[in-house]
């Protein structure tokens, strides 16, 4: 009798924190993080546009850094803290950005918007007052077919300036 072939591991148990809540699930190892968030946790604000890391619609935050939900397996997020658009909305962390997006009409169909907001928040955290050119460059991993990008740049620039002026006046 020959030795049994190695059985590939198909399902793994993972435990992670999503939008501040502890989550434990058994997931197929091939399940990507975006599909896990959407289908397992019903966090449908994370969108799937290209499934190969180009369009940016699935951008989420993993341990504080933005990442493509379609380029990570859910099992790679084991032990991580994952934040999605729902979490950042509920915590009001990006309320100012969201308001600016609504005001400048920086979204039309809204499909790319959660990913764009994730990226914009990361930019403004690292570079509080980016130039328009810098905003355009940073957001070049986020595809938007509707707006032509200008209103998005306007919104991010406005929030950057507003934050800078508050810092200038004593951080109020």
């Amino acid at each position, binding site marked *: 009798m020959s030795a049994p072939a190695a059985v590939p591991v198909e399902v793994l148990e993972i435990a992670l924190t999503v939008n501040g809540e502890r989550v434990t699930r058994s997931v*197929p190892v*091939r*399940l990507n993080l975006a599909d896990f968030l*959407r289908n397992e946790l*019903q966090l*449908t*604000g*994370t*969108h*799937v*546009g*290209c*499934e*190969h890391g*180009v*369009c940016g*619609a699935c951008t989420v935050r993993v341990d504080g850094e933005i990442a493509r939900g379609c380029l990570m397996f859910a099992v790679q997020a084991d032990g991580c803290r994952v934040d*999605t*658009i*729902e979490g950042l*909305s509920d915590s009001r962390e990006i309320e100012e950005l*969201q308001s600016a*997006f*609504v*005001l400048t*009409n920086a*979204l*039309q*169909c*809204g*499909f*790319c*918007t*959660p990913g764009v*907001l994730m990226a914009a928040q990361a930019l403004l955290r690292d570079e509080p007052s980016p130039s*328009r050119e810098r*905003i*355009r*460059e940073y*957001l*070049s*991993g*986020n*595809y*938007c*077919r*509707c*707006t*032509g*990008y*200008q*209103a*998005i*740049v306007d919104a991010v620039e406005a929030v950057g300036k507003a934050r800078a002026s508050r810092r200038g006046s004593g951080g109020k």
Partner: protein
Amino acid sequence: MSDFDDIARGLNFDGPNSYIGRSVTRPNARRLAQGRGQFVDDVMLARTAHVAYARSPHAHARIAAIDKTKASAMPGVIRIATGAEIALVCKPYVGVLTHLAGMRSPPQHPLAVDVARWQGEPVVAVVANTRAEAEDAAEAVDIEYEELPAALDAERALDPDAVVIHREFGSNLCFQRTVDTGGVEAAMAAAHVVVEDTLVFARHTGVTNEPRSILADYNRADETLTVYHSGQSPHMMQGIIASRLSLDEHRVRIVCRDVGGSFGIKIHTYGDEIAACALSLMLGRPVKFVADRLESFLADIHARDHRVRAKLGLDRDGNILALEIDDLTGIGPYSMFPRSSGVECNQVLNITGGPYKHKEYRAKGTVVFQNKNLMCQYRAVGHPIATAVAEHMVDQGAAALGIDPAEMRKRNLIPDDAYPYKSPSGMRFEALSHHQCLAKLLGIMDYEGLRREQAALRKQGVHRGIGLASFIEVTTPSPMFYGVGGARISATDGCTIKLDANGAVVAATGVTEQGQGTETIVAQIAATAVGVEMSCVKVMTGDTDKTPYGGGTWASRAAGIGGEAVLQAGLALKRNILEAGAVILKQRVEDLDIVDGKVVKKGSEQGMTLAELARICYYRGNELPVDFQPELVVTRHYRVKDYPFVFTNGIQGCSLEVDVDTGFVRLLKVWCVDDCGRVINPKLVDEQVRGGIVQGIGGALYEHCLYDDRGQLQNATMADYLVPMAAEMPDIVTAHVQTPTRTSVLGAKGAGEAGTGGAPAVVMNAVNDALRPLGAKVTSQPITPEAVLRALGKVR
């Protein structure tokens, strides 16, 4: 003259309580910005099964055998269906319009039966518990293909030795049409200068960020099919799905909630979507299909793919005497149902040179079948081709005569006082404003200053280009667009508007929202018409069970047609409210008005709130006279009657820099002056123009569906197919001229396609303006760095 007309004439769109012309924010944007939209893939129904497709790997192949044995045994598999099995449930469809004389296309099945005719055509459907399991099993379906020679090159599609895709037709000709005013030969012969060129516009595609998606839920108990669809035209889809699946139309409900971009892509009949509906019927449970990105590139309609030969004759002073074009376009193996793939070519013939006052015009259009993905209507249908051809030729003529491009347009654009005007192709223009737009554009872009700067930089070896492109745009179509050709696509739209028991206004309309701001302008118009705050208005769209019958949103029709229906419904509701108010307040109707949600005596601010009026009408009918019944729900419909289309016009300008060593084109700025009639929401119009321009820039500079010589799409990923991203795009300056249409009270025309229609022309003209002193020109799009270097003779 009716009371209604009196009220309409009394409307003050510029008044303090009017929302018309105000850049209010979109109420639905907040939800989307929080990731709380509801796109089709976000809808999760119990027992949903998922379908994936085995697609043809060949451009043309006979399907010799299909063996499901191995795939059927795969985990999670529920059902595997071939094209022949789906055909038992679903009738084929034929994408021809009868008013495009002579057009032909064979019956098309949702999945290929016997022969596959493009790479990516769905062949076998696999339904499983999850999409991943369905994909696994689809790969395991054993399909034996016998590859056939393919007809790929449109130029050779009609050659005597060409592979004939549909043998019963005897050739690959789908449609041919000519327009001829009769005097082109003589005018060309008399011309001082005749310029000629051949322009090529590559295939590209829509790349909606949300892929095409459908969730079909057939309920065997009540024989209803509910379809959640990412689409633009729910009533059209209701008719198509019902008729193909032999269901009663009223038992089919189409729900279009949030749609993640559409641009004309999601308004056609796709086999993979119809098959999902058929499978739901077969299985009696919900079936979901969401295209992945590869499927999107292979099966979402492609667009453009034109080769146009053009000839322009001018007199000594630069007056255009005659224009002649010959357009050839390849549309894939079928004409798309139900709008047909002949409309773009037809549109090119109708509108090329439309801004200009020449009298002689001859145009020939030829539409051919080929073994590539289907081509059909995409944002600005035909306009990018028509505008780029005419504007390129006008610039060529100007250059030949040494006339500045701006001056050339001043001499040739139809005068602003010449309307109504009939173009040589027979198009009727109600009122356009080319010269006002040109003057405004030259001012906002500081044309003279740009020219001076260009000349100065040229001495330093910097090659700047300045482009202009005047355009017309077909918007707000009448039934002469599709209905006349036998397509069940409504040119009429309705609005049902009601006063709720709490005084809120609810408006349901047949036009739909894909991010343009349709729901916002509906709320603006309803609030203005009734006399309430916009926050009191709730808008419903995208549900065939809940909205009046209508066409949906396409061809820039939502504001012009849907908006007018809302206005008329709102005014009718206002009159009914005032009649109830007159009875309750014991006043004369004509002495009352509604201001800020209150029925007031004209000139007074005190009055009865609509909530109070509704309370009395709904709950305290005992206080009303027995012979009076309030009607607080009304419906009104509207269609364009006076003209086949309500044309708009405008002009774009562009400044860019060409790196003559690398061939790269850097866009510096784009300007657009658009006249879409009365502007309901300037911000939303500006954003339509900006987004549209960037979409047009995509076609001009980057986007190309590259097929190899076996009909294999070479760049079907977003990493390989280039779309405009933020870093390469310029800021875009917009301005407006407003010439309200008199075909409606509202006066709004369409604005959704003006940007996309003009951008390829203005970019190409600017590139050629930069290259002209170097003796080079580009005539095909996309204008890649390689194309620029080739034009400069730096690469072969």
